């Protein structure tokens, strides 16, 4: 009997779903700006773990597109905040162990 063979052919398609983004690393926090043109705020899901950010988003109006992004950061993070305005998602992730000191 001839044994059937299955060939897996795949494509590197990471760039198809990965949105454009920049990371600005400061002494005590990371600022991450992600471009999500045409995406509504309610269609964005954002998660954080000890040292990663995970984002998934869908553009459902016009040309439909799905975005996925996982960013692994060098430092551990806590207190992650995010704001979405005009197609730009701004994520501020404070580095663990850093607290802002108020100067009188």
């Amino acid at each position, binding site marked *: 009997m001839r044994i059937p063979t299955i060939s897996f052919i*795949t494509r590197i398609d990471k760039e198809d779903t990965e949105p454009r983004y920049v990371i600005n690393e400061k002494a005590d926090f990371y600022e991450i700006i992600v471009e999500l043109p045409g995406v509504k705020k309610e269609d964005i899901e954002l998660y954080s773990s000890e040292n990663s950010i995970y984002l998934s988003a869908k553009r459902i109006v016009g040309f439909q597109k799905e975005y996925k992004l996982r960013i692994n950061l060098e430092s551990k993070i806590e207190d992650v905040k995010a704001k979405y305005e005009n197609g730009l998602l701004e994520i501020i992730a404070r580095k663990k162990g850093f607290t802002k000191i108020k100067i009188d």
Partner: protein
Amino acid sequence: MVKDRIGPVQIAIVSLLSKKPMSTSELFESLRRFGLRSRSSFYSALSDLERDGYIERFDDSYKITEKGAQLIDEIPHLIKNSMMPMFYFISNILSLYKDLEVIPEDPNTLLSYKKYLEEELKKVEEKLKKWKKIEIE
């Protein structure tokens, strides 16, 4: 953007060359030990990798390029996103045979299957605990 076609033979060649440069015959012999039988698949994978800049000729051997080294980092992603769906597909096909009772449905097997699923569910819940949903302003 032209996308490169990456299959298991290509992944195996790049992985082998990431250890040390190897000649064509050494490469084929190594892959043959892993179960590859088709010489044409091997030569076709080798020429694709050279054409796409993942490997390059080095004296009488091949060696990995910078782009090839980056592909090594991509391998877990490739397996997870492309090959795992194929395994799910195969297991779904196998599940069709459940109706034909090829897979036993006795209580012992079902109980051990339930235990397996509960253990898998625990692993998923542990992984989910590490993630926190962030509200977007």
